[in-house]
């Protein structure tokens, strides 16, 4: 087994001879500081991905890397559409888990004194945690439409505006969703969960703009110092989880059928062109749309709660969507490979698309500056707005990190929090928190995560993203 090699201050090479069967090298974007927390299991997973048929370029991972199921969290890998594979493990259980950021015209000074009451109002408006039921009841017709239209379905139900769609990745809707590839179980599990936040690391956070690094780009996004923003982190809920569970079985059988050697059952995959992979792709796209509709509905209730709480009109509040990113998804994208344009299946798992200025997939308003990238941190420290860069396009299939990455297991975090009042500790730091679950706050305490600023500095300094602004939490709702 070969050793890892440091390429430069931000890149670590996992050489092809690290593990038998690797078809390409791996690259992990970490500096020496973050390398100390790099898990052996996660490095092995970068290598395992490199063994899959039809991989193009390198198997890569971002500085928030940690051990996942099959593919590492923080991983990006692209596959040839003819000879390459599609893998549910490269997307994850929470299909189109993602983040959106809503701006406002409110400023920190007017919101902070009322934060406790505001968080209570938002907690009431946003269903979260075990046993929570969504405020939406889907009939037979809508349950299919939501899968075909994504956020567009929600906007048609008056849960938002056309501009919300323009400012979401892929317009908040993947084409190629196939409702007929969804199991009865996934339908049933997803029926009552549309319009819910979930639990675990999902959250809704009221923040303020604490520091601006790029005034011009911030201006384009409508961001200014001390402004209040709202960040929402959630995905396709039980619907997407069931789709992943269903298709791991299908793809496990398919891998055997197509003689694909798997080093790990969670790497189950099939040739992209096979009927099995096409069915999964249809179901994955449907789940991505379910998630976009979900984030759109939560956005609507957040706005309603703000309008009522501050007694302001929508125009006065100015709560437009800055952007919405998916960080668990597989997409067909064009990339330049050895000087030739090629369509590839890009898997991003715990990894955010970061397209450069002038990319045709960007909305007009961001064409000149590049794609906004939203990176949530833990509930005590910070979150970031970044931009995609040409270097990301050249080096990482237009991808960057997705969050802080965990440092402690949930169980370790609970043990370390024993005897402490995390809610009060957070309040002392100026952050009001509400959580549905008894141990959620302990599991999600700031020390359980890597410092987001270290992660973001690596992607910024490596040139695969560019810092625009830092956001600080004021109020957090968790499941």
């Amino acid at each position, binding site marked *: 087994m070969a050793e890892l090699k440091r390429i430069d201050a931000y890149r670590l090479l996992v050489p092809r001879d690290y593990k038998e069967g690797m078809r390409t090298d791996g690259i992990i974007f970490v500096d020496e500081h973050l390398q100390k927390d790099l898990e052996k299991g996660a490095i092995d997973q970068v290598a395992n991905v490199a063994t899959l048929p039809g991989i193009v370029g390198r198997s890569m991972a971002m500085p928030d890397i940690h051990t996942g199921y099959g593919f590492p969290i923080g991983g990006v890998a692209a596959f040839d559409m003819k000879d390459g594979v599609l893998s549910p493990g490269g997307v994850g259980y929470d299909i189109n888990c993602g983040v959106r950021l809503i701006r406002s015209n409110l400023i920190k000074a007017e919101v902070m004194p009322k934060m406790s009451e505001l968080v209570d109002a938002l907690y009431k408006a946003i269903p979260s945690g075990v046993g929570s039921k969504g405020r939406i009841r889907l009939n037979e017709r809508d349950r299919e439409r939501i899968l075909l239209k994504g956020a567009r379905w929600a906007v048609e139900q008056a849960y938002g505006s056309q501009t919300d769609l323009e400012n979401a990745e892929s317009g908040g809707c993947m084409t190629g969703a196939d409702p007929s590839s969804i199991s009865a179980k996934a339908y049933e599990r997803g029926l009552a969960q549309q319009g819910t936040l979930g639990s675990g690391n999902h959250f809704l956070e009221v923040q303020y703009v604490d520091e601006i690094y790029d005034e011009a780009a911030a201006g384009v996004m409508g961001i200014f110092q001390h402004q209040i923003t709202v960040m929402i982190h959630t995905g396709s809920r*039980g619907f997407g989880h069931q789709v992943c569970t269903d298709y791991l079985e299908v793809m496990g059988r398919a891998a055997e059928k197509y003689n694909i050697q798997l080093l790990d059952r969670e790497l189950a995959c099939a040739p992209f062109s096979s009927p099995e992979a096409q069915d999964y792709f249809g179901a994955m796209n449907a789940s991505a749309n379910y998630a976009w509709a979900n984030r759109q509905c939560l956005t609507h209730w957040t706005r309603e709660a703000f309008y009522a709480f501050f007694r302001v009109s929508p125009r006065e509040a100015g709560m437009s969507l800055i952007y919405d990113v998916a960080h668990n998804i597989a997409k067909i994208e064009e990339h330049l490979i050895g000087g030739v344009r090629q369509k590839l299946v890009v898997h991003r798992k715990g990894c955010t698309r970061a397209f450069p200025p002038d990319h045709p997939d960007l909305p007009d308003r961001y064409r000149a500056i590049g794609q906004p990238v939203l990176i949530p941190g833990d509930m005590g420290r910070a979150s970031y707005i970044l931009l995609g860069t040409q270097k990301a396009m050249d080096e990482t299939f237009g991808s960057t990190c997705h969050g802080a990455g965990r440092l402690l297991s949930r169980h370790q975090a609970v043990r370390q929090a024993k005897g402490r009042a995390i809610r009060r500790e957070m309040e002392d730091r100026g952050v009001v928190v509400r959580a549905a679950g008894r141990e959620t706050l302990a599991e999600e305490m700031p020390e359980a995560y890597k410092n987001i600023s270290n992660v973001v500095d690596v992607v910024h300094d490596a040139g695969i993203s560019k810092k625009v602004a830092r956001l600080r939490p004021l109020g957090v709702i968790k499941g």
Partner: protein
Amino acid sequence: MNKARFSILDISGDIGISTAGATLPDVFVNAGMALYSLSTDVDAVQEQFAREVHVEADTCDVLLIRFLNELIFLLESEWFVGHRIEIGAMQCDLQGGKPAVLSARIQGEEFSPDRHERRLLLKAATYHKLRLEQQKDGWYAEVIFDI
């Protein structure tokens, strides 16, 4: 009720359980009750009605994952939480060859946030580092859940 006999495994982002039992059905019951214990305080769950599950697989370890994913499905689709699991028919040939099958009946009720403690929402039982093995004095399993 079945007393949940299990320990928590430390996993970086999620949570795992390990459990032992005298017999294979014991391990399945323990793993199922561990799953319910991760979601709520099982002592507060009443036996108001029953749900039945039936799963099949090529191997015993896959059978265990499918069984647990069925429990997660019932939890998430009906918010059904169990208090007692009874294994009915079970066939599991460790050497393989014969398909593995399991029928179980679970006594429980609908989760109610007013009466039941909210713990974790489980996305799925995974195959990651899955272990199910016969040891000298019984059976042992390790399962990791995605949270």
